[in-house]
């Protein structure tokens, strides 16, 4: 046991030698958190200039207040024009003329980005539809009874606060795990190969160090999230359990990368891009259901998907299929732990390996 503690102590002490990597692993999620919190200050409101609002004050007023069921406005309407701002112009008021509901709204799109065009178009169509339903269609309007998963929509920044924590776990775990092994290739691997200590102890020491560093890193993140995202309720025990599991899995994957690539820079690249890829394909940026069946398959096999689901549950109360999530995460842990042990034993520990 003392030896295990010594290995953990040595691993933690050696963080000083690769301080830049540790700084980037801790700071990156914080930078992205700040970016999203600032960028999503207005949530889903899009700025728009309203022209000729006086021609139909009722619709102009409705456009300003058109909002989600939770009251988040779709448009941030003003009469100030700007060269980059879309303009909604009421050319003919919405009114009944000769038994017909008429009106002409002109939407001047400034962006050439199809995504923004889609977003603006949807909002205006929604506003017009909702307006005529409320004011003219009465019993003919098709009403929608919503059955949402959550009683209230989860605020976008709260979603990101939880989601970016997963990105941090993936990046930190991969980086700490890979560096823990890659630094041994600079000369000490030979000592590990001639040591009588079982590979289990060596690997366990490295894994414990990864998890401890991860808990510190998560502590910084949770503190920053609690300050920047008001009203965030965090179940500390739940977060600690999820973070423990996440760092263990990502750390083991990182250790495999460290054995395979040996070079710290390559390990850094693998960790950076691996974490980004796993995060994106694990619904980190939004659901991957929109990229088709292949995407859905990758998402289902991706441990980050389940880690994210658990963390979203702990932070935002999103329903989670515990049985599936725990089974998949445990399966990934067993597979990675077994693979790391076998690879380490075969390549480094056993006579005939290649510890140099």
């Amino acid at each position, binding site marked *: 046991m003392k030896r295990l503690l010594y290995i953990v102590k040595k691993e933690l002490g050696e963080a000083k030698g690769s*301080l*830049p990597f540790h700084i980037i692993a801790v700071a990156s999620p914080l930078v992205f958190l700040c970016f999203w919190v600032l960028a999503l200050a207005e949530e889903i409101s899009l700025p728009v200039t309203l022209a000729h609002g006086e021609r139909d004050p009722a619709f102009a007023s409705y456009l300003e207040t058109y909002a989600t069921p939770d009251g988040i406005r779709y448009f941030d309407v003003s009469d100030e024009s700007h060269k980059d701002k879309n303009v909604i112009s009421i050319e003919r008021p919405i009114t009944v003329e000769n038994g017909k509901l008429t009106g002409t709204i002109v939407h001047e799109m400034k962006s050439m980005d199809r995504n*923004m065009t889609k977003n603006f178009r949807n909002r205006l*169509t929604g506003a017009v539809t909702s307006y005529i339903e409320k004011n003219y269609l009465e019993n003919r309007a*098709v009403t929608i009874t919503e059955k949402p998963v959550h009683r209230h929509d989860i605020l976008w920044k709260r979603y990101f606060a939880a989601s970016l924590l997963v990105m941090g776990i993936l990046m930190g775990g991969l980086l700490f795990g890979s560096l823990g092994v890659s630094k041994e290739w600079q000369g000490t691997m030979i000592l590990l190969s001639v040591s009588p200590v079982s590979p289990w102890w060596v690997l366990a020491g490295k894994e414990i160090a990864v998890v401890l560093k991860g808990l510190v890193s998560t502590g910084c993140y949770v503190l920053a999230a609690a300050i920047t995202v008001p009203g965030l309720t965090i179940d500390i025990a739940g977060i600690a359990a999820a973070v423990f599991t996440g760092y263990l899995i990502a750390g083991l994957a990182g250790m495999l990368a460290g054995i395979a690539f040996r070079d710290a820079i390559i390990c850094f690249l693998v960790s950076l891009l691996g974490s980004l890829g796993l995060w994106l394909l694990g619904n980190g940026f939004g659901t991957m259901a*929109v990229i088709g069946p292949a995407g859905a398959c990758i998402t289902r096999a991706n441990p980050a998907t389940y880690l994210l689901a658990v963390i979203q549950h702990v932070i935002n109360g999103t329903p989670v299929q515990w049985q599936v999530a725990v089974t998949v995460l445990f399966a990934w842990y067993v597979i990675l732990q077994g693979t790391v042990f076998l690879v380490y034993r075969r390549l480094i520990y056993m006579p005939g390996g290649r510890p140099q």
Partner: protein
Amino acid sequence: MNRFTAELKKIAVIIANDPRSLAAGIIAPSLVLIMFSLLFGGLSPMPVGIVDNDRGSWGRRLEKEILSQISPLGDIPYFGKKETDYTKSLAEFEKGILTGVLVIPEDFSSCMEHHDKPHIVYHLNNFNTDFAKNMRLYLEEGIYSFYRKYYRDIDIEIEERFAAQAQVEWVDIIAVGTLLLAFAIGGMFNYLYVFFKEKLYGTLLLYRVAPRSPLLSFSARIIAAFLSSLLAGLFNALLACLLLNLNLFAYLPHMGTAVFLTVITYISWAVLLSLFMDNFYGAVMAAMGGAMILWFFSGGFTMAVPEQPVLLFIYRIIPNSYALDVMRGIVFGSNAADGTLDYIVLTGTAAVSFSFAVWAFRSRVWKRPAA
């Protein structure tokens, strides 16, 4: 001139002995492009379950309108029907396979015909406000189209006018961003790698006792970094061509000035990092992490100028923003202005950064011989 070619040869030998200096600069932006291409290059309609229990025909008509609305993003329908059975739909919805389930009740047609509040039930995943907004508004598109088609007394026009010449896919906008990232990281990484290799070999110390200024050596390093930058950029453009069918090669000559000025700036920053940081890993982390973060903050993945004052300020002080404005203007014809301001800012940043780099290199690598 002999010294210059000798320096170039030396750098070529260092790179040939360890091509990771080239690979690392190419891999990172390429993988970023590949990931975004996979994510946004092949979007599919939102998978939904539509359970039509209607005894009449109005339910089918509504369903047809909902499924036939086309999104400007990717020119694909907003929704794709994946399931029609209620129980299976709800099970798949709970697993996250379906993003929503629409149930049209038995009496929908009857309610339509008798003007008796026709209604539908919509199960939707509102895991974040943006996604919930999409699910709601995509359905509204279908319902609006339904009204327009079947409610003869509705004659409302929503006319769209586009200020821009064309509409471009989001992933193409990102591709131009990653092209700039490739140019920037390719040069920075090469410079740092070669410089720190020499630190490792101890050859840098020799410059301190050299009788001549090391600026020829500096020029050779800058040119090697430029070539590396060019290689990374060309590789990225090739990937954009293969993955997205977006031929960026055709625009490279026109983008040359903006790219050149940005690369000069980034290589100059790499020079400063190499001189003021002792640790190779620290310098590389700062370079790569910094370049990625600056890319992110400067509109690398979107053309929208930030509204939030702090983000707008950050956006304005990063040279990438101006380079991307020019580059996207050339590729998509998006820049209404002639780009004079962009070029002024890029030239100024490049000139200041490069001057600092030259001064720092000269003063830290070489000791002027005593008179």
